[in-house]
C-alpha cells in the first residue's frame, strides 16, 4: 500500500501539480482579459471540433483531423526524402576524410540558415505551394541526419575495426555487421532531432504556403479571430510533437547496446 502511494507521489504528483497550476494561471489570465478565452471555453470548443474531425466542406474548410494528417504527410515525405539522401551521405562523409573536409564548410554555413529562407527557392523551382513546403521540411531535417550519421561513423571504436581486420571481413560485411549497427544509435538521434525540427517548421511553412494543414489552419482561424481554435492548435501541435518524440525514443531504446 505504501509503495503505491510512494510511486504515485514520486511519479505522478509533480506533473499533475504542474498541469493544474498551468491551467489555473491560464484561467486567471483569461479572467482579466476580454480577448483570451479561458480553459473552459476552449475545452467546449475542442469538444465540438473533435466530435467531427473528418468533415470536408470546401477545399479550405476541412476537419481538424484532415489538417493534422496533411501536415504529417508533408513532414513524412520531406523527412523521408531527407533520410534517403542524408543518411547515405552521412555514411560517406564519416568514412572518407576527404569528403568530410570537402563538405564541412558548406554544411557549417547552410545549417544555421532558417529553413523558411529556402521557401522562395522551393516556390521558384516547383511552382506550387505543396512541394515547396515539403522542400522546406527536407532542408530542415537533412542537416541533423547528415551530421549525426557522420559522427556515428567517426566514433566507431577502434576495437571493432581491429576485429574486422583480424577476421579479414569484406567491405560489405564490415558495413552490415559492424559499421551500420554501430552507427544506428547516432543515426536515430539524428532522426529524432530532424523530426523535431521538421514538426517545428511545418507550422510556419504552412502559414506561408496555405492549403490544408495545421499551420494554415492556425492562420485561417486568426483571420476569423477564433482564438479558441488557435489555442487548440497549439495544444495539438504540442501533443503530436510529443508523440512523435516518444515513438522515436521507443525505437531508439530497442537499438541501444
Amino acid at each position, binding site marked *: 500500500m505504501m509503495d503505491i502511494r510512494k510511486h504515485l507521489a514520486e511519479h505522478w504528483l509533480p506533473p499533475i501539480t504542474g498541469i493544474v497550476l498551468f491551467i489555473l494561471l491560464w484561467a486567471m489570465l483569461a479572467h482579466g482579459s476580454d480577448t483570451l478565452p479561458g480553459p473552459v471555453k476552449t475545452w467546449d470548443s475542442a469538444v465540438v471540433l473533435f466530435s467531427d474531425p473528418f468533415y470536408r466542406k470546401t477545399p479550405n474548410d476541412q476537419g481538424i483531423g484532415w489538417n493534422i494528417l496533411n501536415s504529417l504527410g508533408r513532414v513524412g515525405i520531406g523527412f523521408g526524402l531527407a533520410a534517403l539522401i542524408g543518411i547515405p551521405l552521412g555514411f560517406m562523409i564519416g568514412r572518407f576524410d576527404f569528403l568530410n573536409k570537402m563538405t564541412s564548410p558548406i554544411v557549417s554555413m547552410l545549417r544555421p540558415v532558417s529553413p523558411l529562407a529556402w521557401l522562395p527557392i522551393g516556390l521558384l523551382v516547383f511552382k506550387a505551394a505543396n512541394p515547396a513546403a515539403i522542400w522546406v521540411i527536407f532542408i530542415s531535417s537533412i542537416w541533423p541526419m547528415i551530421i549525426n550519421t557522420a559522427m556515428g561513423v567517426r566514433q566507431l571504436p577502434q576495437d571493432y575495426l581491429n576485429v574486422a*581486420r*583480424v577476421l579479414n571481413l569484406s567491405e560489405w560485411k564490415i558495413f552490415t555487421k559492424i559499421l551500420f549497427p554501430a552507427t544506428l544509435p547516432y543515426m536515430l538521434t539524428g532522426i529524432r532531432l530532424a523530426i523535431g525540427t521538421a514538426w517545428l517548421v511545418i507550422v510556419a511553412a504552412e502559414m506561408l504556403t496555405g492549403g490544408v494543414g495545421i499551420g494554415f489552419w492556425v492562420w485561417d482561424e486568426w483571420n476569423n479571430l477564433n482564438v479558441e481554435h488557435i489555442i487548440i492548435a497549439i495544444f495539438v501541435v504540442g501533443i503530436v510533437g510529443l508523440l512523435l518524440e516518444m515513438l522515436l525514443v521507443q525505437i531508439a531504446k530497442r537499438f541501444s547496446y
Partner: protein
Amino acid sequence: MKKYVQIENVQMSFETKHGPFVALKDIALKINPGEFITLIGHSGCGKSTLLNLIAGLIMPTDGVMLCADREIAGPGPDRGVVFQNHSLLPWLTCFENVHLAVERVFGATESKAQLAQRTQEALALVHLSHAEHKYPHEISGGMKQRVGIARALSMQPKVLLMDEPFGALDALTRAHLQDELMKIVAATNSTVVMVTHDVDEAVLLSDRIVMMTNGPAATIGEILSVDLPKPRNRVALANDAYYHCLRAVVLEFLYQKQARKAA
C-alpha cells in the same frame, strides 16, 4: 623442424611530434609448432606491439616476419587474435560472433550446415554451448573472453595470439580460464603466443617465457625454457621446488635486472 613463426631483426618505430620513437629493436624469435610462448615485461615495453606485429595489425619498420614460411603482410585467418577487452560485437549473439569468423574462413568451401556445426563445435570447446543465443551483455566477463577464444580458434589458425586475455578478470575466474586454456591447447595442439604481466600465469602455461627489456628500444632480454611436465596442475605446482625456481628467475629479471623506477 619447420618454424611456424619467424621474426628476424625486427625494428618498430612510431612517428611522433618529437621525431621517431623506437619501440622495439633487434627482435629475433623463432616459434615452433605446438609451442606455447608468453611475452612478459613491464608495461610499455612493447610486448603488445610485438603481438600486433605478428597479427599483422601494424607493419615493422625494419626486419622480416614470417608465418609458416610466408611473409606477414597484414592480418590473416592463419593467425587468430584474442583481444584483452574481448571485442565481441554487442549486437550479435555469441553464436553470430563466432559464425562471423567461421563464415569468413570456410564460407566459400562449406555448406551452411557445416558452418553452423563448426560454430557450435568452437563454442562447445569453451563450454559455452548453453549460451550460444545470448548477447555479450548478458554473460559474464570470463564467458565473453571464452567466446573471444572460441572465435579465434574457430578459424583453425596456425597461431593463436592472445593479448593479456585474462588481464581484466578477477583472480578466481582467471585461474579457471587458465586451466581451460591448458586443456584446449592440449586438445587442439595449438601454437600460442600470449602477452601477460602475470608471472604465475607465464610459468604455468608456457613452454618458453620471452622476457622483454624496458623501452624505449625494448628488445628480448632473456628466454626461459619451462620444462615442467604436462599436464600441469596449479595445486601440485604450488609445492613444487622447480616451479618456484623458474618463477624466481622471471621475478629476478623483472624486478632486479629490469627494475623500474617507481612510476
